[in-house]
């Protein structure tokens, strides 16, 4: 019990935290569960748990991983309870990104049309829940390795290994689903980059001069 956090109503800052993190937590849970109904329930559950534990919350800069931990555990518990590891086909995002919700030129919309991205999400749904959680937190929401480790009770090296395996499994699942690496990423561009004739070959040395 850290008395310093307490104030008159005991929930000081909760509202702010909720507003700040509701988006990422909901997005995380949605990707974890694959259904909007589940995502709604579990996001609410997670924040209710956070509210009950509010007086024991960590300092501000650790609030985000703390909330991710609560939400992730809620998802893992639920998935364990259902013993549902294999998923129905990932048709979720067609529903989530209803055109009315997405600006016409938003990147989401663009990706929607990209079948390969859909396949990636389908592959994601096939991963073990913990792998999925780790990848989502790292790739989508930018948690550091260390933070991912904290959420999933892993050491630094453990998190490193987990993320590596998760990536490889995601890649394997994606290929197994018939996906292929996008022709436009990867090979050619990186090669060009390497031999210094790419679009970005005019590298500037760190002590670049002032061109003004």
């Amino acid at each position, binding site marked *: 019990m850290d008395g310093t956090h307490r104030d008159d*109503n005991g*929930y000081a800052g*909760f*509202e702010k935290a909720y*507003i*700040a993190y*509701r*988006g*990422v937590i*909901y*997005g995380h849970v949605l*990707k974890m569960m694959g259904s909007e109904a589940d995502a*709604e329930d579990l*996001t*609410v559950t997670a924040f209710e748990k956070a*509210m*009950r534990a509010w007086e024991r919350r960590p300092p501000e800069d650790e609030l985000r991983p703390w909330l991710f931990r609560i939400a992730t555990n809620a998802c893992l518990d639920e998935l364990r309870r259902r013993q549902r590891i294999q998923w129905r086909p990932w048709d979720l*995002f067609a529903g*989530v990104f209803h055109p009315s919700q997405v*600006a*016409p*030129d938003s*990147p989401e919309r663009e*990706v929607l*049309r990209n079948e390969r*991205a859909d396949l*990636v*999400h389908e592959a*994601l749904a096939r991963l073990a829940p913990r792998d999925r959680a780790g990848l989502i937190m790292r*790739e*989508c*929401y930018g948690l550091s*390795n260390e933070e991912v480790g904290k959420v999933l009770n892993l050491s*630094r090296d453990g998190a*490193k290994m987990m*993320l*590596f395996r998760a990536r490889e499994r995601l*890649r394997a699942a994606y290929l197994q689903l018939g996906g292929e*690496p996008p022709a*436009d*990423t*990867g*090979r*050619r*561009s*990186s090669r*060009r980059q*390497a031999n210094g*004739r790419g*679009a*970005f*070959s*005019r*590298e*500037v040395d*760190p002590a*670049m001069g*002032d*061109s*003004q």
Partner: protein
Amino acid sequence: VTPHPVSPLELSAYRDSALDEFRQQMVESHIAFCSACRDRLAEYAWLGSSLRSTANVPVPAAVDERVAASFEAANRSRARTLIPRLWLPRQAWAAVAIAVLLVAALLIGLPGGDGSFGPTVASAYLFDDQGTPTIRVQFSGEVDRETVAESLRIEPSVRVDISWNGSEMVVRPSEPLHPSGQYTLSVNPASRQRAATPVALQFTGDRPGTPVPLQAKPAPSSTPLAAAVATETPAPTATATETPAATATPTATGTATVTPTATETAMPTATATPSPSSTPEATPTATATPRPAVSPTPVEPQPWDGFGSFLSAVPDVASKLGKAKGREEATDAMVQRFQRGLLVWREDTGATLLLLEGAEWRSLPSTGAPATVEPGDSLLAGSISRLLERNPAIRSSLGIATTPALPARSVAQSYQHGSLLWISPDTILVLYNRGSWEQHVDGVEQPEPTPQVTATAAALSTATVTAPATATPTAPVPADPTPIETPSPSVTESAHRMPDPSTPTPAATATQVEGENPVATATLTPVPTPVSETTTGGSS
């Protein structure tokens, strides 16, 4: 199997910047010549960006309601306080139907010539946080939060909540803003005052997360809007009160959809306006027909048809570039705009392009791992920031960030004498090997339509909200930061989007522009070429 100096595990960790410095550099030099590792890394990156592309989903209102209910119940036993209306941000904001929100941030102090980076404002922009517009002011260093918070002024006065995220101040209005209101936000990060640099941001309610800079130059007297913002008096922009319905601010053009009423009245004016008067050459005939013969396919911004159509529309650029040397290559990118330039970060190379108006373009090497840049972050972080801190003149010429880092798609192709870089939704950068660069606006899907028709279509689409143009919000803004001779660069930008065929009356919207703002109207039409010439950057 020959032993490989870098394990796949290390590649993965490299992507996460989780290696020690030595190994990090080791991997970096290894992938320079090992295509297998490079490819694997690129696959990781692509998989990651595919996941990230759906990371931002709207939170259902039901979640807010349920959490709010729990919160209320929990509070009831204690003190019956709180439950501010913030709990239902979506509904609250929807209720006011925010069309256009203007915020002018009067920001004090860019780093001066002395190279000192005292506490100054690094960026300021509107950010859509799940439906609630928040103003984010990022300082370049540590500031005294209380002093800064006390210095915060908003005119007209609005209740706000202030929170801090590191050196970033997040200002969140805690009461509904007036839909057509113009707000001026000023903050003073330090005691020593420097010349105030006004920055205006335009924000459209239906376009979450894409604030558009409405940059006012230091001497914005010529532009009515900028002036209005600066003075906080709506005088020059009398439009607000006079225009029918909600189209309060002149900038409202972008969001004209909100006001269906205007349509009918608008018609006559609209037809009259566009081309004949301003540019006789432009479209004498096409104007007459409300809907030009162009098959106005609502074009989603994608250059997949190649740079060919762009180059055929700008032959001078094509001849300067020479022959294509490679294929078009796509990647994800992050773009952040500043008062006088932009930064573009590419996921595949990890390099960051620095495009400063009037200067040569530069590619800033990424030191360390390809950083994960999240939407909303600033690209002025880490090594880039350190690099620029050593070059205060460049940093200060760039000005204040007027947008956060926004995700975008990017396609690059190299040519004999330079390269082309397309950035979604509609920016084409021409980077010459000699160092100069230009900024064009993509958007002509088919080169067939005659320039005139395109011009008209452009005029229409500028007005219509429905047009897929991201650039739309910028369109009516008279104050363009670029010191260019082009008639009206900003208008041109949006102009090249195709109009949405479903738009009932493009004319209507057009009127709104014109009604009050004959100047703006004039600029609408004169589009010199089918592909715009919005040029920025160094002389070529």
